[in-house]
């Protein structure tokens, strides 16, 4: 367990000292959201109608953008080989990596999302559901993203490839996340959608590390 938290600590410290990565992801998130009013026009009714979708799509793209640094850095400097050789199961290492990735991208995205909700004129009553949905959905995105990052490790054009293989897998959180915001404004209530989002993250928590660890093993062979 010490190794597990040590790895998280190591990744967090790297992210804090380099700093640029978190800023890049957040900057992309903000810019992507701000582009929409220019693209679809500044009418508040229209923006309010699609606000949740804009924020979710931008968060998803920002998460994809950050995935390549999940394993690529450690792979390049050989650290990944040492992690694989250590006594800690590789699945646990993947889980630590995923947790660090969520803390450095998912969580900051959740934190700035209320500010961005103002820009796109999201209905204030829906704001708690949007934030809660992102909070429940982003862990699944980090965990599923770890599979794609591990699979495309060492590929010729990892960025494009990763986007292609990850987007189909990211659709469920996107669908339930935006549906939760829609439902919170109707009589239906967001509970069912939020539960499904939580279920996605909880299912990815034990399953994704196995798939990602298997992918890492064959990448390191």
């Amino acid at each position, binding site marked *: 367990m010490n190794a597990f938290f040590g790895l998280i600590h190591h990744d967090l410290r790297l992210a804090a000292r380099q700093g640029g990565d978190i800023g890049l992801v957040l900057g992309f998130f903000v810019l992507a959201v701000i582009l929409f009013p220019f693209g679809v026009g500044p009418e508040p009714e229209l923006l309010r109608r699609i606000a949740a979708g804009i924020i979710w799509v931008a968060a998803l793209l920002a998460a994809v953008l950050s995935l390549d640094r999940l394993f690529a850095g450690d792979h390049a400097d050989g650290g990944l080989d040492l992690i694989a050789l250590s006594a800690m199961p590789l699945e646990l290492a993947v889980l630590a990596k995923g947790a660090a990735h969520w803390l450095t991208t998912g969580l900051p995205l959740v934190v700035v999302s209320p500010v961005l909700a103002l820009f796109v004129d999201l209905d204030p009553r829906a704001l708690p559901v949007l934030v809660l949905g992102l909070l429940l959905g982003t862990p699944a995105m980090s965990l599923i993203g770890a599979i794609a990052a591990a*699979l*495309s490790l060492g590929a010729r054009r990892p960025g494009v490839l990763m986007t292609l293989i990850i*987007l189909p897998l990211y659709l469920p959180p996107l669908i339930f996340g935006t549906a939760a915001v829609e439902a919170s404004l109707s009589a239906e209530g967001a509970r069912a959608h939020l539960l499904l989002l939580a279920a996605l993250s909880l299912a990815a928590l034990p399953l994704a590390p196995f*798939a990602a660890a298997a*992918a890492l093993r064959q990448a390191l062979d």
Partner: protein
Amino acid sequence: MLSSLANPARFMRISGVARPWLGGGSLVVLALGLAWSLLLAPPDYQQGESVRIMFIHVPAAWMALSVYLFVAIASAVALVWRHPLAEIAAQAAAPIGAAFTLICLATGSLWGRPMWGTWWVWDARLTSVLVLFFLYLGYIALVNAFDDASRGGRAGSLLALVGIVNLPIIKFSVDWWNTLHQPASVLRLGGPTIAVSMLIPLLVMALGFALLFGWLLLLRMRTALNERKARALRLYGMPAAGGEESGQPGPAARPAWR
């Protein structure tokens, strides 16, 4: 029985015998099915003649799902038993499955225009089949993304297994959500609700599509095996040309025979 086929040499021999039969069979059955479904089957009382699109659309959709299942099972076999032929089978099947998925999407769109009044709706069934198409594309892209072909094969196998979560979603999407796409009318509890005069040509078409898949699969697998053989010959078979006495194949050795 399948494991006895797993020897590549034996596979080449048996598939060489089976190939013309599968090819001829699929052409005959498809010709019969097309004539039956396009000319002889009755027009639908509501949809009129455009129901005939269904005879292509439905078998293509079945094949799109079945081929993905095939790719996933072959990938599992390749990962667990490390058998090269299973990997070749999965890689050979994926583009065929992608083509079936594209046919399914295109014919569905053509049918949707007169029937639903729109080329495309974002309903659960249509969306999940589109996702299946992207899964195929992702698999093909991943397999071809590495300089080391065996690495691409194993990464692709893992992705195929991960993507299998989408199959039940497609199959049951019309039951779980209220979709514009109609629910299943052939494979359902309580027997088919489709008229026998349409069911039989539909099944004939499905058999034709399945035979066509088998034929194309054997063709592509044999090509892949021959390609590997040719590559091995090029790398190891001519010791003098590259000047590499250790027998270690280097990338530099390649252009000499290109």
